């Protein structure tokens, strides 16, 4: 007999949450946050880390309250079938859109780095096929992809030792000169990069040791925050301000300084390896969105992933210009902000009130 739920150990949640946070965002993140918060960007990141850690705590509270439910089921439970389905549809669309935004921004990056002249849909197509193959293996494989891709790619951080030699400490000085509204704008703008912790809402039922999850998820969130903080601080120290404002992918430009006696132009390798980083992103978003489709429309998940992939593939013919992509990503960042920074808090209070009312009656 096969059970429908495959259980994984709690530590896997660390890798899932962390790898779904790190993706395309971090490559361009130092610039985006620098534009808003200047050299005090690190304050914004720490604030946003703090905020996310709070929300993760709230998420765990909600999930523990409903034990073995994922967010789709919780929504239906709290708001009823009709309104719950509407909210779930929004979530599914969000995940499909974010999946597409990851694919298209990666394809754009790789087209700039050595693949000029290839159609966008080719890259989208290849990445979708691989993702389909992974997701059709079920949660166990998706979790495995997150786990392995973390270890295969994490060493890139160590390649940053070469840019280390040309850091200028004075570039981050003087600290705390940016006004609070600008810092808050930085927090707001950082949402696209920092998003990904919401996967916790959906992987929760699969985790074996649920009591450890609070600790593990906090660890994951803070690890990501520190990693982002690290890369951003390094970027600020490495680039002069005007340069940082011009580079679309500061992290890639920074890696381009890395070279070895046997290898020049390390950034080409890094851009290729980045496929593995986004691969876990794509797998987890496709998995979650297809799970949502299953919930709302009662189709089998294995059919859901095909439907979603075809939708994404068709979209890839329409949004291909740099300007459009930027706009699209910004929109997703904003929607993501309201959906995952604001909505969980609302949901928390609503569920508390609802359970109070129920216990009264």
């Amino acid at each position, binding site marked *: 007999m096969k059970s429908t739920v495959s259980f994984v150990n709690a530590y896997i949640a660390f890798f899932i949450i962390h790898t779904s946070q790190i993706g395309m965002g971090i490559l361009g993140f130092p610039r985006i946050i620098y534009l808003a918060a200047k050299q005090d960007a690190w304050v914004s990141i720490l604030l946003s880390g703090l905020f996310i850690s709070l929300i993760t705590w709230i998420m765990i509270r909600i999930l523990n309250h409903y034990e073995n439910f994922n967010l789709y089921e919780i929504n239906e439970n709290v708001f009823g079938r009709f309104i719950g389905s509407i909210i779930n549809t929004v979530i599914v669309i969000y995940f499909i859109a974010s999946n597409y935004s990851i694919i298209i921004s990666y394809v754009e990056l790789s087209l700039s780095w050595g693949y000029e002249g290839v159609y966008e849909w080719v890259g989208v197509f290849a990445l979708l096929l691989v993702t389909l193959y992974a997701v059709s293996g079920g949660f166990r494989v998706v979790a495995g992809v997150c786990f392995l891709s973390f270890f295969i790619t994490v060493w890139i951080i160590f390649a940053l030792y070469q840019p280390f030699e040309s850091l200028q400490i004075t570039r981050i000085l003087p600290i705390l000169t940016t006004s609070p509204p600008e810092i808050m704008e930085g927090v707001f703008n950082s949402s696209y990069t920092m998003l990904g912790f919401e996967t916790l809402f959906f992987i929760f039922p699969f985790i074996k040791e649920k009591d450890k999850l609070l600790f593990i998820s906090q660890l994951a969130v803070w690890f990501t925050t520190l990693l982002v903080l690290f890369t951003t601080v390094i970027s600020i120290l490495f680039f*002069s301000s005007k*340069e940082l404002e011009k580079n679309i992918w500061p992290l890639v430009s920074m890696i381009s300084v890395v070279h070895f006696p046997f290898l020049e132009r390390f950034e080409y390798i890094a851009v290729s390896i980045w496929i593995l980083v986004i691969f876990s992103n794509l797998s987890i978003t496709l998995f979650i969105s297809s799970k949502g489709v299953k919930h709302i429309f009662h189709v089998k998940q294995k059919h859901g992933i095909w439907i979603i992939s075809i939708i994404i593939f068709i979209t890839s013919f329409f949004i291909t210009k740099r300007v459009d992509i930027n706009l699209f990503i910004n929109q997703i960042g904003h929607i993501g902000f309201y959906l995952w920074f604001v909505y969980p808090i609302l949901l928390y209070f609503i569920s508390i009130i609802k359970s109070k009312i129920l216990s009264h009656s």
Partner: protein
Amino acid sequence: MKKWLILFCSLLCTACMPPEKILERQGISTIIGYDLLDDGTYLGTISLLQFDRKEEKTSETISAVGTTSKQIRQILEQKTSHDITSGQLRTLLFNKDMTETKGISNFLDTMQRDTSIGSLIFLAITDNAEDIIKNGNYEEYPEMGSYIYQLLDKQERKEMLINSNLQDFFSTLYEIGIDPTLPIISNKEGVAPYINSVALFKNDKMVGSISLKKTMFIKLFTHRKAFLGDITLNIPVETFKQKGVSLAEKPKEDKFNITIHPIKHRGSIELSTEDEVKLNATISVSTIEGQPAVTLKNKESIKKLEQLLGEELNKEFGDFLEELRKLNSDPIGIGRKIKSLRKYSKLNDKDLREKYSTLKLKSTIKVEIKRTGAID
């Protein structure tokens, strides 16, 4: 059905290949030089590494005239049977005229935009770029581009030069409060090109040049780990006598020559009052040559010698700073230091330059003799 779909998909993929860049079909440019012509257009010269069937010939030099770098490239492309690619581009040469009158940031901007060009390519300035690239003396290297790359790379590794690659140039150019520097390559009949001096910039325009030796003073404050290069000082004998340093034998000439080898250094820039900047530096050295020999037995005499050397260096440094201020070029980054203070953080480039020209610069260089080699 599903299997066929996958097969079909993979066949579809094979149809969409990126344009190939097979190695031996490329004319691999390793160096590009730009010269400003009298009519305002540019002459671009390029040295191509190409692998033809004949094994003896591996390079070709061609040049073309145009108004933008990409136009020059287009015309160059017409003149060769290989595809010109810049993936292995290692050096960019600019003609002095051009750097002095037009500035080079526009040219460099397209280089940065082009992802096939790495950010580690070297930049250098020369009197006539075309002549250098067409110069046939390049030691054992296959062509001029490789030679110049090796020349500059050696200098960078030994850090005799201030870093001069595209990334460094940009990061100092765009930074408010510091100006870039670039090496000047000199070309003479019958010998391989060599590095002659260092160009000083104000923004992206060259304003003057200093000798290689003087780059030491810049590195003292900008690069903690840089290799300063040996310092040779010629000190009049009288000064020795005044200070009371005893020499082993009586000097035949009236100058005492000493070469010291810096081991470690530390420099700091401090804004002490509103308009006074203190530049303090300490250099740990070992003495490697003294003519005539000097005895370094007791603590006293070493201390005196240290003091003497410090003062001598300080004098040179003071002159150097004045020279810089006259050119209104700030390669040391005094402006950057000022801007990093909370009070001045809102200053823009123009304000900083004004402030720089009115600042009082006070320098102190301390020398510490750490080692004297195998003998005292």
